[in-house]
């Protein structure tokens, strides 16, 4: 209406506009911050997962080493059958089928733990619950008796167990359980009102596997109608060797670990493979493949497949492995690339393993994947990338790899049966159609939505519930909701890394999800803090990986470097990916792993700056040191087996002998005198025996920034 008013309005208008612009800036800025946080959370997750799966590939090396040992020499030290041959040879020990296996074991008066009476009653399971909460160890006699009874019960069960919701209330389904107590506290103990299906992976990782599995078996004996266990890929003695269950048993049961482990092996292989609810919901641990045939599966003798990692013996003999093994190994180390045979290779597999994938995984996929298409043998390049000089060959091709060049004959029934079970226990779903070998894990398949659809239709099912993969939210749906992954261990990698979840399903067959997260901290971490904590832990683990592959990495960097000793960011990322094969966002991670030179190129030496070995290793050549770092866990397992009396000591002779075998198998060119020097230097009190705990301590990677206040360990300790 007049100049004054319009000026005022204009001024007002300007203010409003300014306010809006300011608001937009703030909103966008904060959202970007949240998005960056989310990115960090995701790549942290990627790091944990890829390192975990890389570890699973490594265990195939171990299993092939055991087979190698078994095939190449009779006894380690000439005395009676040892644990290793017991573990390797699936022949049943008849003694363990008789009650005397536990009856003859005396339980001292001084034992204050639970004394179980069979058949079990609720008071027994309650006694177990309280005992374990108070960190008591169940006496070996009762463990054996429990396993013996469980074995008897499981023998009567079919491979595929059918459940009905009309007799029970809602069924609770858990997978990947580590914290039995967490779920039962929230959901209730197993009972007629609260029936459970535990979908595999009861053991390994964590120090309480024995307690968890004893409780599960106890409830199974108590309520066989309301308690159901599916076998998982960790219910496998070879996996247990690698992932800690065997060690836990050996530590807690020094005298009877042999028998206990043997019985566990029997019980694990007798666990049912699958559960079907109301004829509509199929529950298995891993997944399926395009070869999965539930009728065939139901007909096989499941206990014959003791381990996924022991390839059916007959096929090995047929292919006459031992002789060709050595020659093939030598050939391979000089041949950087070989023509790839045709194979189904889609992006799901390629994200986890490029064409220069770890040959332990590719070889295992050739042996462990469908024998139906022998030409689907994935390529077997040398483990070190072609550009790296071949004088450094720390990793070598495991013997299973030799299967690649010999097309297997049409599979005998043994092998078919083995594959049916391995597919169920090891497979993972993928988004793309089709079925391809699971190169990430080295066993089982990646199965697509079409495979799921076909199987469900074929058997009149409507849903597949599986576990096997850790999910950030504890569960995940895929294949248009036809597949549910349920994972019940929260904080699997690290505090705050993921939630756990379980499913309840009732007569209407609609699954309901229950999530939880265990937090050790009393105050709630903000999102930023928990992301930062998990990220820090993941980066540490990743740096250790870099450290234990230092020689190969340095060699790769040196091939690309310019005069100033730097490489471009792209070259840096390339070398890392080709050596470590973890498929991680290296450029995004770069600021955490390496410094830039002033010209923006990467100072690659800075990758290794803040880590060092546990004790100074003057006598040890870099090759040897790295190998020991990398195989630390495997070596520990082998020592545990050799150490029959569980004293923690092995003789120098045994050490030397084992080490020579190990390095021969790996094809490492190590001077014998270097080993001798090492052995002597570790024998601190010069009595001819080595405390291998101390030895292994030396090969633990130490993060310098952590270590400021810790006293020197290793060499300065005295017995």
């Amino acid at each position, binding site marked *: 209406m007049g100049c004054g008013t319009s000026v005022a309005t204009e001024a007002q208008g300007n203010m409003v506009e300014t306010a809006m612009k300011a608001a937009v800036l703030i909103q966008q800025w904060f*959202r*970007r911050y949240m998005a960056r946080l989310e990115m960090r959370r995701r790549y942290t997750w990627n790091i944990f997962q890829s390192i975990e799966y890389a570890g699973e590939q490594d265990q195939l090396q171990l299993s092939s080493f055991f087979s190698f040992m078994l095939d190449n020499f009779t006894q380690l030290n000439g005395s009676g059958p040892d644990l290793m041959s017991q573990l390797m040879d699936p022949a049943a020990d008849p003694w363990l089928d008789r009650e005397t296996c536990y009856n003859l074991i005396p339980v001292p008066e001084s034992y204050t733990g639970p004394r179980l009476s069979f058949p079990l009653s609720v008071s027994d399971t309650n006694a177990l619950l309280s005992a374990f909460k108070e960190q008591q160890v169940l006496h070996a006699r009762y463990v054996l008796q429990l396993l013996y009874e469980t074995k008897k019960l499981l023998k009567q069960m079919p491979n595929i167990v059918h459940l009905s919701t009309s007799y029970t209330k809602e069924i609770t389904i858990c997978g990947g359980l580590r914290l039995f107590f967490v779920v039962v506290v929230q959901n209730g103990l197993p009972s007629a009102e609260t029936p459970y299906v535990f979908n595999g992976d009861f053991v390994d990782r964590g120090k309480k596997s024995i307690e968890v599995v004893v409780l599960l078996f106890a409830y199974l004996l108590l309520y066989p109608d309301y308690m159901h266990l599916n076998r998982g890929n960790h219910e496998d003695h070879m996996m247990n060797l690698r992932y800690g269950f065997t060690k836990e048993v050996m530590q807690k049961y020094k005298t009877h670990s042999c028998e206990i482990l043997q019985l566990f092996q029997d019980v694990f292989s007798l666990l049912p493979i699958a559960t079907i609810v109301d004829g509509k919901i199929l529950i298995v641990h891993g997944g399926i493949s395009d070869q999965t045939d539930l009728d065939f599966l139901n007909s096989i003798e499941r206990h014959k497949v003791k381990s996924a990692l022991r390839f059916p013996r007959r096929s090995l003999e047929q292919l006459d492995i031992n002789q060709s093994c050595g020659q093939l190994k030598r050939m391979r180390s000089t041949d950087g690339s070989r023509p790839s045979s045709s194979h189904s290779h889609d992006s799901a597999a390629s994200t986890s393993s490029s064409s220069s994938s770890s040959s332990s995984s590719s070889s295992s996929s050739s042996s462990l994947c469908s024998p139906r298409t022998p030409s689907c043998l994935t390529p077997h390049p040398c483990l070190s990338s072609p550009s790296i000089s071949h004088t450094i060959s720390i990793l070598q091709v495991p013997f299973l790899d030799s299967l690649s060049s010999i097309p297997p004959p049409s599979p005998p029934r043994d092998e078919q049966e083995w594959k049916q079970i391995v597919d169920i226990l090891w497979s993972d779903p993928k988004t793309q159609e089709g079925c391809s070998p699971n190169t990430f894990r080295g066993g089982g398949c990646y199965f697509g939505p079409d495979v799921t659809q076909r199987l469900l239709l074929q058997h009149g099912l409507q849903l597949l519930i599986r576990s096997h993969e850790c999910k950030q939210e504890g569960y995940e749906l895929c294949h248009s909701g036809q597949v549910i992954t349920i994972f019940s261990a929260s904080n699997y990698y690290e505090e705050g890394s993921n939630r756990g979840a379980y499913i309840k399903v009732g007569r209407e067959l609609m699954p309901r999800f229950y999530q939880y997260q265990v937090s050790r901290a009393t105050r709630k971490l903000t999102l930023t803090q928990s992301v930062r904590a998990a990220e820090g832990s993941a980066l540490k683990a990743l740096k250790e990986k870099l450290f234990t592959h230092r020689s190969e990495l340095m060699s790769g960097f040196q091939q690309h470097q310019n005069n100033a000793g730097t490489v471009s960011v792209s070259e840096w990322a390339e070398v890392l990916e080709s050596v470590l094969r973890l498929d991680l966002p290296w450029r995004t991670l770069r600021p955490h792993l390496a410094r830039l030179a002033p010209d923006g190129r990467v100072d690659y030496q800075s990758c290794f700056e803040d880590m060092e070995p546990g004790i100074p290793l003057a006598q040890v050549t870099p090759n040897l040191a790295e190998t020991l770092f990398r195989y630390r866990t495997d070596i520990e397992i082998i020592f545990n087996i050799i150490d029959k009396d569980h004293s923690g000591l092995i003789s120098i002779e045994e050490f030397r002998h084992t080490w020579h075998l190990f390095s021969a198998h790996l094809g490492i060119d190590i001077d014998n005198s270097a080993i001798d020097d090492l052995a002597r230097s570790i024998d601190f009190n010069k009595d001819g025996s080595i405390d291998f705990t101390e030895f292994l301590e030396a090969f633990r990677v130490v993060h310098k920034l952590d270590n400021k206040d810790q006293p020197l360990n290793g060499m300065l300790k005295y017995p």
Partner: protein
Amino acid sequence: MSLIYLIWTAEGANSNVFSMFEQAQIQEFKEAFTIMDQNRDGFIDKNDLRDTFAALGRLNVKQEEIDEMLKEAPGPINFTVFLTMFGEKLKGADPEETILNAFKVFDPEGKGVLRKDYVTQMLTTQADRFSPEEMEQMFTAFPPDVAGNLDYKNLVHVITHGEEKDQE
């Protein structure tokens, strides 16, 4: 939510987008894209959107909201579109000064704090409105004091410098 939301506030797509960036930058963005593309099919789609929302605390996004947003997008969000939309925005950090000044627009007396209710009103009712959940996220991470005042200087400082620290 924030990443995808930015798409809808961008100008049009530039067909020559790859020439805007250096090779190294493109590689970095490719990585970021891959991180967001959870099912690894080359597109950020409905499922990635929903998961992203969920991950950022918005568990209750309605299907219609997602569909609306997807309808407005120029097409499926592949890498080129991604690059166009927020290549710069993902990495770019607004200088601390700029954001502080933005807050100061609402604090003309320069007290350094703003009332929680006012902040809520300011951010949830105009421009690229915050949802209640997003507002809650900010207040959880940076709680106002007992009198209900938000120390925005601290908030800006922590976010800017906290991240710098994490980059070391």
